[in-house]
């Protein structure tokens, strides 16, 4: 984020305690949307008053994959597509932790698509925040599983002829218990949504539409990143509880935002514990909330 010249910087940014300030400046381009999503996440953490020592963040690879590296939490920057299974290992190894996966569309639903659908199916207790910029940004604007049909990417220079994922529908149909979509300019709504999701259990999925100012915007001649942020915001219609089948995103078309699914279902660990308690009775020994660490 650039600062106009001669404007004095505040002593400390309000979300600084949630960030690794020793890693600033970050790597994101000017007018990239990821930063505002991080701000919303940090604000939501502050509002929930969670014990941050018990919140863990896991990212994969890509522009959004760098988020874990900037958060002042126990943080894991893992391999491409594997943030969800890596996070699954943390959750099952120490069940008391709140585990957040923060990554991009290509990472989580391209190379990591299989993990995404299975974690949703199992209702693994993870909050997944996915920033969707419709393109592979870090590697130079290649086609993503989310690139709208007809949009240009560096590997679809004549326009994309594939059909993209409708991510809220994918998540909901696989069993996610909390499904939302916002844009990165819905600051208050997105913050509230993350705060709500942090208070829920199970596989919680929030898609955040954000501009890739450097690649997607340039390849498609869509103006500056700011123009694109504003376009997304102004062309999104808020429809809570919408049928997720109707959430496809066409190229530079209007689309639906809102909270679509918010239901309570037992998580993987709830089901496992209840099942073994029923079947095995007193013989079942539950892993302690603080994990299976064996020590003297």
């Amino acid at each position, binding site marked *: 984020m650039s600062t106009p010249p001669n404007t004095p910087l505040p002593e400390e940014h309000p979300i600084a305690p949630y960030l*690794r300030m*020793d*890693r600033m400046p970050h790597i994101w381009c000017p007018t990239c949307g990821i930063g505002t999503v991080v701000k919303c996440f940090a604000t939501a953490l502050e509002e929930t008053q969670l014990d*941050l*020592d*018990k919140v*863990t963040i*896991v990212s994969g690879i890509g522009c959004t994959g760098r988020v*874990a*590296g900037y958060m*002042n*939490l*126990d*943080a*894991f*920057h*893992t*391999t491409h*597509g*594997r943030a*969800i*299974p*890596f*996070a*699954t*290992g*943390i959750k*099952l*190894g*120490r069940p*008391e*932790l709140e585990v957040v996966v923060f990554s991009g569309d290509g990472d989580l639903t391209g190379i990591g698509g*299989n*993990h995404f659908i*299975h974690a949703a199916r199992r209702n693994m207790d993870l909050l997944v925040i996915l920033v969707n910029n419709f393109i592979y940004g870090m590697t130079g604007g290649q086609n993503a599983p989310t690139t709208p049909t007809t949009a240009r990417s560096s590997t679809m220079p004549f326009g994309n002829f594939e059909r993209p994922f409708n991510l809220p529908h994918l998540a909901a149909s696989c069993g996610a218990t909390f499904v939302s979509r916002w844009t990165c300019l819905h600051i208050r709504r997105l913050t509230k949504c993350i705060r709500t999701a942090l208070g829920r259990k199970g596989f919680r999925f929030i898609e955040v539409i954000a501009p890739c100012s450097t690649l997607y915007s340039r390849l498609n001649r869509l103006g500056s990143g700011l123009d694109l942020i504003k376009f997304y915001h102004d062309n999104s219609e808020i429809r809570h509880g919408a049928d997720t089948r109707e959430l496809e995103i066409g190229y530079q078309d209007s689309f639906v935002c809102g909270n679509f699914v918010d239901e309570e279902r037992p998580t*993987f660990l709830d089901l*496992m514990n209840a099942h*073994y308690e029923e079947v*095995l009775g007193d*013989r*079942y*020994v*539950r*892993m*302690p909330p*603080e*994990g*299976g*660490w*064996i*020590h*003297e």
Partner: protein
Amino acid sequence: MKADPAGVLTGVHYLDGDFACGEGAMAAGCRFVAGYPITPSTEVVERISRRFPMMGGTFIQMEDELASMAAVTGGVWTGTKCMTVTSGPGFSLMMENIGLAAMMETPCVVVNVQRGGPSTGLPTMVGQGDMMQARWGSHGDYELIALSPQSPQEAFDLTIVAFNLAEVWRVPVMFMMDECVGHMTEKVVIPPSDEIDIVPRVLSDKAPGDYLPYEVNGRPVPEFVRVGDGYRFHTTGLTHDERGYPVMSVECQEDSVHRIINKIRLNANDIVRYDEENVDGADVVVVAYGITARVTRMAIDMARTEGVKVGFLRLIVVWPFPEDRIREIASSTKAFVVPEINYGQMVLEVERCAAGKAPAILVPHGGGGVHDPAVICQAIVEAAK
């Protein structure tokens, strides 16, 4: 410390190698296993999934081996000892996150019950063709540890050793069983828990503000903490500094990658493990591992009746390789004979270490069975001439 009795099935059992390996993991304190079913390794996780609920362990069958290895790498950071289990095709998929585990210095155990390959190969039949993959399979430079058991009893004993070595050196340890040992049922003695030594996860006693995840201060490995204990640490598969922060520089690459290599290379003599028999003064020294080591002992007996002075070196830890010992032997023996169920893998290491002082003669077997001892014997007799 001594093993947690909850995981130790003390007694005299008749178990196959897969079951014994599972028992070894539970005795070693493993309490999280993520895996994907693949013949001939599946019995390991079947055993564990049946016994884990009674000892506070969690098993999850993941969607594939990419996910299994990722979940294990994540799980380790909670302080829980973790393992995954697979065979050749799955081992190939695990390579991605085995590299991550090496880079993050994540101690865990990866069991590979080797079958005939390449590709789908011989799912139900023996092979030893993944030995080099265990060492070199993930991209980039790193070092790790690998072991090879020759019996169900060793599948139990050495799985515990594998977990202990992983903790000491903070590396993923490859447990390179073969299908024959995995599917072979024999007597397995499981001692009382107070006779089993395990290396617990040792955590740093530094305060969160003073702790850096990759600071070593001259030690071979950094101090560990657990996720969720307030350290707010960061780790990454990118080249990183002591803080665990990515640093894209020649200097940081040299510092960090060279250290994870040297922690094994410079300490190899503390890690290597082998059995030796009549090596000094032998005309021919046979080097073997896994099931092939047992068949080889028959061949050696046969060759001795023909008057050949044969020595035997059985690899137990296969990686790091006992370079110094092989070098030493090379200057006193006429030749090495290396039978293995592949077309030449560990023989390349023997040849490298022998450095032209003594030839290393491969006795290959394509897989699906074990060597005819007479064939190995013939190679020994020829080599002695």
